[in-house]
């Protein structure tokens, strides 16, 4: 199994170069929201292990919201974030990146602080890495290569069925047998490739095991302390939940339309949002605890392809910024922003409240998981106002949804079984 990993490089932009940077990023697109996958600066399509990538100028329009706490908004620098999700480890990917796109990266990064003509790009990027506090991968081990091979398998099988109407009169088991026979022959002839999974890297396996055991152990060790703190925590939390101000004004019409301009060009979309963590230790610790739990669950517990009831997210991550003051959330999802938000509210409202309820202005939550985003009119504006336009967004398989990937995988797995009973065969045939 080849595990997935992610990278994020974050650097402040030289203010006088912002305009130039924006133009450079725009030049990587065919039009708003539509990347040129073979653009001259970073030809994403050349990286055979890259699932998603984005370049985004982190321009948070809501920094003034902290005024509701009597705080003065800090003049944060404008950051450029370059992030992606890929198969294999982060370091090798960054090395590949420099090998393939050194000139383009140099052009882009030269608009950032502390990047000179003789800067070593790789080191510069590594020094500016920003790890996520929580990370979600739809299905661990599903590589770009496997996605492409299984997509081809699906197409080949579909076209075979289309050409062989005699299959329609056969019993499900026989159809399965015929298709298996056909696919095996295609594989044998080399016309179809379905590569076996690579062995899991030993180092990753060990780290994963340590994480699996270590986190509960840590919680266990800390539990006496947690139990003592709990009553105080709850009292204080409830007080904050009752008094924390909501900041959900209607989003500027022009801003909303700018965001829409970059959306719905494909069956999938990107989402990048930013906000400030509410002031105070309690909110910070809550955020760390909740996101730690999300990360742990995403890594070890959730069923592949399902983040709670949501089946449309390919990759997602939460990242702290400026210490732990601010947070960004980036995801890659299928469908439109309205279906995504609908899923948030109606399928995993509890999770959305827990992970974002600690952000300044979020609609009022109760007991961390209740209400909050269920205040739909407020949440819609909050959600939109905190969304940032993503300047460049790449997806390696633009026509495929996460459900498509799951379907293709189920088809392949069915073909690896030599014989199915009629019930199994019927269920398998329904995938086609």
């Amino acid at each position: 199994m080849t595990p997935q990993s992610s990278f994020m490089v974050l650097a402040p932009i030289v203010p006088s170069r912002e305009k130039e940077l924006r133009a450079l990023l725009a030049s990587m697109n065919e039009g708003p929201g539509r990347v040129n996958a073979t653009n001259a600066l970073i030809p994403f399509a050349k990286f055979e292990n890259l699932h998603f990538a984005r370049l985004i100028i982190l321009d948070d329009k809501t920094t003034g919201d902290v005024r509701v706490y009597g705080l003065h908004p800090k003049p944060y620098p404008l950051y450029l974030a370059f992030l992606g999700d890929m198969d294999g480890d982060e370091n090798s990917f960054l090395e590949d990146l420099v090998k393939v796109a050194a000139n383009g990266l140099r052009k882009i990064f030269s608009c950032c602080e502390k990047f000179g003509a003789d800067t070593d790009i790789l080191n510069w990027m590594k020094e500016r890495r920003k790890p996520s506090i929580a990370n979600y991968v739809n299905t661990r081990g599903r590589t770009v290569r496997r996605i492409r091979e299984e997509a081809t398998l699906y197409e080949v099988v579909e076209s075979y069925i289309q050409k062989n109407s005699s299959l329609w009169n056969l019993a499900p088991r026989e159809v399965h047998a015929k298709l298996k026979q056909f696919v095996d022959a295609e594989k044998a002839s080399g016309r179809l490739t379905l590569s076996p999974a690579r062995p899991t890297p030993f180092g990753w396996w060990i780290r994963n095991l340590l994480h699996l055991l270590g986190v509960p152990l840590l919680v266990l060790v800390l539990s006496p302390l947690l139990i003592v703190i709990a009553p105080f925590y709850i009292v204080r939390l409830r007080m904050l939940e009752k008094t924390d101000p909501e900041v959900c004004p209607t989003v500027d019409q022009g801003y909303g339309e700018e965001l829409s301009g970059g959306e719905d060009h494909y069956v999938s979309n990107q989402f990048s949002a930013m906000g400030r963590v509410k002031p105070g230790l309690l909110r910070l610790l809550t955020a760390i605890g909740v996101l730690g739990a999300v990360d742990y669950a995403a890594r070890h517990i959730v069923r592949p392809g399902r983040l709670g009831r949501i089946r449309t997210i390919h990759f997602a991550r939460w990242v702290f910024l400026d210490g732990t003051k601010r947070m960004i959330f980036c995801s890659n999802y299928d469908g439109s922003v309205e279906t995504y938000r609908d899923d948030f509210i109606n399928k995993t409202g509890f999770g959305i409240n827990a992970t974002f309820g600690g952000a300044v202005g979020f609609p009022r939550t109760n007991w961390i998981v209740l209400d909050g985003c269920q205040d739909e009119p407020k949440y819609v504006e909050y959600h939109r106002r905190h969304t940032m336009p993503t300047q460049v967004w790449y997806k390696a398989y633009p026509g495929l949804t996460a459900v498509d990937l799951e379907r293709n995988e189920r088809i392949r797995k069915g073909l690896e079984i030599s014989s199915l009973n009629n019930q199994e065969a019927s269920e398998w045939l329904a995938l086609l």
Partner: protein
Amino acid sequence: MAGVTMSEFDYTDVQGLVRFGYKKMTKASYALLRVKDAALARAWLRSAPVTSAVEVKPSPTTALQVALTAPGLEALAVAASVIAEFSHEFRGGMTEESRSRQLGDVEANAPEHWSWGGPARVPHLVVMFFGEPGPFETFVQTSKGPSWNDAFDTLACLDASDFGGVEAFGFADGISQPEIDWNQRLTVPRTQLDYSNIVALGEFLLGYRSEYGKYTDRPLLDDSAASADLPAAEDAPGKKDLGRNGTYLVFRQLQQDVRMFWQFALQQSGGDIPQAEKLASAMVGRMRSGDPLEPIQEQEIPGIHTTPGQKEQNRFTFDQDPAGSRCPFGAHVRRANPRNTDFPDRPRNVLTKLITMLGFGPKGLHDDLISSVRFHRIVRRGREYGTKLDLEQALAPAPARNLNPESGLHFICLNANILRQFEFLQNAWLNSTKFSGLTGESDPLLGNRVALPGCPVTSDFTMQNSGGLRRWVSGLPQFIKVRGGAYFFMPGIKALRYFGQTGSSTP
């Protein structure tokens, strides 16, 4: 959650179309207007004989309804600060570039080709006339009054036709409608486990609680001489509610190529007419008679066939057809109303509910892919237009001289939240090539068949087949073309009078 009001709802301030389809008034005409003289237009709005939703006996023989676009409010000199409190979708308009993409209004459907509603042809208001054939013409003339032509420029005057309860392709139409909970007797459930056809009043009228138990954003005004007659805001003490009793009206002119539809079905069925009808029914999801492809269920569905006037043909869900073998997943009626609930299975207790919530519920590929329908309902008030083509004519080879009379649907729907209701339906369900785990498809009737990056084909239609290979047809042409459209606000009657008064004065 919602306050239980035992008093009967007061319909006097609501325009009648929200409550009635005016089916007995077989004549209808939609005047799409631009304001020529704001003062005269306002004067007309102040005195227009707008029909309310109050039930009167004997039933009236004529009705008049009025709705305005955002540019229309501007043209009437409604304060910009007031307009800014209407929804983003209404203000942006149907033809905003990104919205066109989301609605499928691209290529042949693009607003630049529209006969109205496109660039420079956006109406300011629509005046809808309904009537029985006898009094209709006179009613239209008297309602217009003497200053009509000085007040308005007529962009288009769309006449509806009466096809006798069927739409242009020949299928019974308008069967599925939500039942509005006018008296707000039902408390909105946090979680709905059984499909119900009764939907919260706030889904269709502004100023009331929605299915989320919340109030949709809308202009709330300070009490002043100008706003004195407006209803009070339920959720903001001391404020006047300009939105209350109003609704957003989505109008789309959809041209249906009837001959193309039936000829395609016939050709795919090898010239066999019963087979062609079967294919067409699968695409629609109902028989031509309106009978569903699913059996009518024994168990009652709240708000369906419980009172006279509600149709029994509507008493079904897709629960017993999880594989789509009776009614295909992609059938028009299944896309438009999946009749599902908040949870995919019916969790019997908190534990099973929790298991599902955490993602350990049903494992099937198609399970739980569709959003809960109760947040995405619309009231449809459309009417057919053009010349009806009988099935026999449609199936016969086209005559030598291309006599293909235009017909279609003046699609009208009402909702309190265009984004979450109409646009969601259109984008996530009807247009989506990935609806319910499908691929390569779009709505068999409405789809524009336009390719997306990585999805070269959107013109297939699949009929799932339990226990066997699916059957499918490929190369569905575009049967329906969008010819015009706009987003309107159909205000409460007091709000309409307010628009007639305000002028350039600030609120």
